[in-house]
């Protein structure tokens, strides 16, 4: 009953010892996943995704989901 958690780019470097999995029974939303995965406060401009799709922090999550957190996109 887990949710996988990923951090990218500057967040991957800045968030110290994040969990790569959290218990899905404790996490209702993406915001909850952040709080379970790290003690850091969530920075203001963090973007997130669920199962490879852009999502809002208020979006619900479910068992087996992959949740990712990342800073503003700078490709191209």
């Amino acid at each position, binding site marked *: 009953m887990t949710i996988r958690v990923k951090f990218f780019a500057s967040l991957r470097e800045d968030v110290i010892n994040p969990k790569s999995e959290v218990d899905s029974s404790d996490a209702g939303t993406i915001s909850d996943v952040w709080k379970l995965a790290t003690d850091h406060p969530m920075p203001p401009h963090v973007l997130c995704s669920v199962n490879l799709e852009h999502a809002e922090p208020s979006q619900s999550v479910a068992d087996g989901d992959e949740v990712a957190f990342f800073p503003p*996109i700078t*490709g*191209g």
Partner: protein
Amino acid sequence: MAVLIKPESFNPAQLQAAHEADMIAASGIVGHFGATASFIGTMRHFNEGDDVTGMMLEHYPGMTEKELDAVISDARNQWEIHDALIVHRVGDIKPGEPIVLTVVWSAHRAAAFEACRFLMEALKSRAPFWKKETLKDGSHRWVERNTPGY
């Protein structure tokens, strides 16, 4: 329609020509498109007033391809296009090397120009890539935001 993620330096003209040759072979028709618009983003040796000696491009494998496919789908819904190609570099990049290539083939130039530009703007806002620059003094910094394109 194709999306390529390249961990090594690529030649935009070569990839564009190869895709076009495949497209012509697949259609069996010579001369079915009249307009080809393309854009190449190249790594500059300066940014925000500082000398940049190198760059590392991180991405989110899986999500990247999904978003780039979606960007092409959105373009096809808005313009009549024959084909489109997006190539994006990842990994360690040096100044002068291409970062991104977008190409659109269409019957008409307005669709080609607009869809090509749309691909660039859409990928810059949606596709999960992040740039980390190496400055002349050896320090590193994450690029914080993209410049506006319109």
